[in-house]
């Protein structure tokens, strides 16, 4: 470990806190994936890792390399932007697919369509 030796204490402490907080939040989100009972409840769990976890860990990495190499490494910004923009789209499509499948099976847990007609897949696009 050569490069981490040069990290001063005032930068090391926030890096440690951000890293631990980010991974702890991600772990709580993944525990939620196990503990929550229904699929629609579980749909909320990965957003913890994708919003707070990603931002905190990327911030830790940005601080480290901004201090060590005196320049900003911008890959982290791209990662934050991609994850924050794309995860909602995935979860939204998964939610729609689950609703569609549950309605086909006449499941009790999902609300019926207001008009009473059978849902057609062509309506469910965004």
């Amino acid at each position, binding site marked *: 470990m050569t490069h981490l030796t040069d990290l001063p204490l005032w930068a090391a402490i926030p890096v440690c806190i951000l890293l631990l907080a980010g991974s702890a*939040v991600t772990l*709580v*989100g993944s*525990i*939620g994936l196990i*503990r*929550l009972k*229904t699929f*629609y*409840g579980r*749909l*909320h*769990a990965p*957003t*913890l890792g994708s*919003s*707070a976890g990603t931002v905190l860990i990327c911030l830790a990495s940005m601080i480290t390399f901004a201090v060590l190499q005196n320049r900003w*490494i*911008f*890959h982290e*910004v*791209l990662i934050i932007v991609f994850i*924050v*923009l794309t*995860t*909602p*789209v995935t*979860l*939204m499509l998964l*939610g*729609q697919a689950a*609703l569609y499948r549950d309605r086909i099976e006449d499941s009790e847990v*999902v*609300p019926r*369509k*207001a*008009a009473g007609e059978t849902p057609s897949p062509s*309506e*469910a696009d*965004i």
Partner: protein
Amino acid sequence: MRYWFPYPLLSVSLLLFWLLINQSLSPGHILLGVLLGIAFAWAMVNLQPQKTRMSHYGTAARLVAHVAVDVFASNIAVIGVILRGRAKPGFVAIDIGLRDENALAFLACIVTATPGTAWVEFDRQTSVLLIHVLDLDDAHVLAELIKSRYETPLKEIFE
């Protein structure tokens, strides 16, 4: 001008993306990024997305700040719910007055990116939005919150 640069914002963001991913500001990369931006903007013309005019940049900035605060607060709330292990999940149906497709897409991303609420379905005929909430106290309060905090600014920005 409009013919050569059909989507200026898209071209500029593609150029920025190219420079960030290569981590250089050399003239060659700038030239390549500009060419890529223009080429992809022309490809976009054939896809024919719905054009919208954005305005009220102050409202947009306030909306972004609101969303950041809400994401932070609901992160903490969802951590509490998962660790305690009890919640009252439920579906909420909201009447939405938004018509513009881009505004709806923004609303969908905001609602889903906030932990604790997830967009499930939008019915175009009845304009009823169905969202799933992890810990539901009062459906009316939540519906009013979403309408006043997100829908009104989005309507102002896009319509």
